[in-house]
């Protein structure tokens, strides 16, 4: 087993990985940008290395600096988390070339799945169902012909893309040209490639993905599905497992397809096969594979009873997976809500600022994976994910009730959050019925507005100035008493 690991990420996922390392008796090295010098992941790690400026290319996307930091601190392996360099095959190769272990799949697997067009061709060959569409097109004319053949709406997406970037829904021919341009530009900016593919856009589709996991000795299993259909801007905000749509037979079929897909690229470590699911005809299509740990991995951990991050590390260290497919069953129901610093009433625009107050929900079977605390700053440099709130209960109805109670206990002041909006989704009849498809949020909450201001709220705000007057005075006094006193910023009152 490794004695020291560098974590090439930030925020909640860096902390999640640090905790896994500590339980395995492994020392940790955090890396950080100048914007993150007071971040929690830096405080929790055993040591830390400053990479550079806030811009990701100067820090969390800078492969050379990260590998140098690992060599300098004597780390033996690098965990990339999700996002940033996690699906970058060149990075994985560079890590291995530097005689370090990349905690994830092989560079070859990442590369094979990284190109959405190439991987789709491979999946067809492996007998995995894929969405009707075309790869390898060049001119706008070719795309136009393909779109007409498939039938609108169609989806154009960057072959190298992921995470909702470089992706456009095209409802009619007149929108095609702009969409191609935008997707190409985003693809080029974000992934360094403007190659696109086009496929049928499934209107009321569900996004159902399967967790797969393999060791380096060819053992490969799946750990059931995650239903991730509650999305805004092609990004998930609520995930749950099991999916109410799957029969045991369908689950088995999809699980087998997921394992076949991963086997086709000799996959090891944790990965996710994303399917589009059409509930009208109970058909599923391979969408893409995420060759890394997924944001929503905790719901699988709770329902399957496994620590995915610890096993990522163990498998990377050469341990053999002691489990077989039949050792796993789904127990209970888990839901994750992503708490974002964003304003649902303005089309989910991100919100930045200092967290004046940040109180997490707590209680039996409530898990909070978070990278923030009171006084933390939410900057525009990085993803505005504040925390993942995860619950586990005996059944779906209990899990929804538990989540709603937990959300109402969460307090985050200083940035606008989507907490109240998540509540609205959770209490919606369509969510209760499990009918939510990927476009449901935009169709139902376009004109959503936050609750109005109540008289009670105004009374509380007025009285706070009176009751907490002492606190503001303290802050004013103590700022001048000690220059070595960096903690005043944590006061919840700033005047």
């Amino acid at each position, binding site marked *: 087993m490794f004695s020291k690991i560098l974590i090439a990420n930030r925020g909640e996922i860096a902390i999640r990985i640090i905790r896994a390392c500590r339980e395995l008796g492994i020392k940790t090295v955090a890396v950080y940008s100048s914007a993150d010098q007071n971040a929690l992941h830096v405080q929790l790690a055993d040591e830390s290395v400053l990479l550079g400026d806030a811009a990701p290319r100067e820090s969390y996307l800078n492969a050379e600096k990260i590998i140098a930091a690992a060599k300098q601190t004597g780390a033996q392996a690098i965990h990339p988390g999700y996002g940033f360099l996690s699906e970058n095959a060149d990075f994985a190769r560079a890590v291995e070339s530097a005689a370090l272990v990349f905690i994830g799949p092989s560079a070859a697997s990442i590369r094979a799945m990284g190109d959405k067009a190439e991987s789709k061709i491979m999946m067809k060959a492996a007998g995995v169902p894929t969405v009707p569409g075309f790869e390898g097109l060049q001119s706008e004319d070719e795309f136009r012909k393909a779109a007409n053949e498939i039938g609108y709406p169609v989806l154009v997406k960057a072959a190298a893309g992921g995470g909702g970037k470089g992706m456009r829904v095209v409802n009619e021919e007149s929108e095609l040209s702009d969409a191609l341009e935008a997707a190409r530009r985003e693809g080029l900016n974000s992934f360094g490639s403007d190659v696109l593919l086009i496929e049928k856009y499934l209107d009321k589709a569900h996004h159902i993905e399967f967790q797969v996991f393999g060791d380096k000795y060819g053992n490969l299993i799946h750990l059931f599905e995650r239903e991730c259909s509650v999305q805004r801007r092609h990004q998930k905000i609520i995930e749950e497992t099991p999916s109410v749509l799957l029969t045991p037979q369908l689950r088995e079929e999809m699980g087998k397809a997921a394992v076949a897909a991963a086997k086709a690229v000799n996959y090891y470590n944790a990965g996710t096969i994303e399917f589009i699911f059409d509930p009208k005809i109970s058909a599923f299509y391979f969408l893409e594979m995420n060759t890394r740990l997924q944001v929503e991995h905790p719901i699988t951990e709770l329902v399957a009873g496994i620590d995915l991050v610890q096993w990522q590390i163990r498998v990377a260290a050469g341990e053999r997976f002691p489990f077989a497919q039949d050792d796993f069953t789904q127990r209970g129901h888990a839901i994750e809500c992503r708490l974002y610093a964003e304003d649902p009433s*303005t089309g989910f625009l991100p919100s930045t600022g200092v967290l*004046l107050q940040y*109180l997490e929900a707590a209680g039996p079977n409530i898990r909070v994976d978070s990278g923030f605390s009171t006084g933390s700053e939410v900057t*525009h440099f990085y993803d505005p994910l504040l925390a993942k709130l995860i619950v586990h209960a005996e059944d779906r109805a209990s899990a929804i009730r538990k989540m709603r109670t937990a959300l109402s206990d969460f*307090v985050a*002041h200083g940035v606008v959050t989507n907490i109240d909006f998540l509540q609205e989704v959770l209490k919606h009849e369509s969510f209760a019925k499990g009918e939510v498809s990927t476009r449901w949020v935009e169709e139902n909450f376009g004109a959503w507005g936050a609750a109005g201001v109540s008289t009670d709220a105004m009374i509380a705000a007025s009285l*706070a100035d009176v009751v*907490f007057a*002492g606190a503001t005075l303290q802050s004013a006094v103590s700022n001048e008493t000690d220059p070595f006193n960096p903690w005043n910023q944590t006061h919840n*009152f700033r005047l």
Partner: protein
Amino acid sequence: MKTTFDTHSLEVNPSGAGYIAVVDGKNVRVQVLRADAKTGMMELSIDGRRVVAHVSADKAKRWVTMNGQTVMLTKTSGAKRGVRHDHAGGLIAPMPGQVRSVAVKVGDLVKKGQTLLTMEAMKMEIRIQALKDGAVTALHVQQGQTVEREQILIEVEE
């Protein structure tokens, strides 16, 4: 003590062991049952109802969470003061981020709906489009520049 939040005013005055709040001409009896500055928590009795609130303050802003719902209030002098969304012919940044590209220069004639520049922040691309036909009279940013929320980016006059 009279306070105005956005466009609403109320008055809160000490009275015995508690307070009287005057809202819309009506008197409401308020008591502070418990308060914790560390969490900004206040347990109040408002007209006999028990209410738990978390309140934070940043300059004129007050954040209040009650019953799991959060609102943000702004203390004003009482005169109505809107946000700068409708600043003359200026187009402002709806969020902090970075200018990805600028499609026009000063003097260009533009049409309503035309994309003038694009911004990127976190995982979003945002197009700043002309709200009316006109000419670009000022360009305050350039490609690659970091901008704050509500910063004026570009100005278009009819």
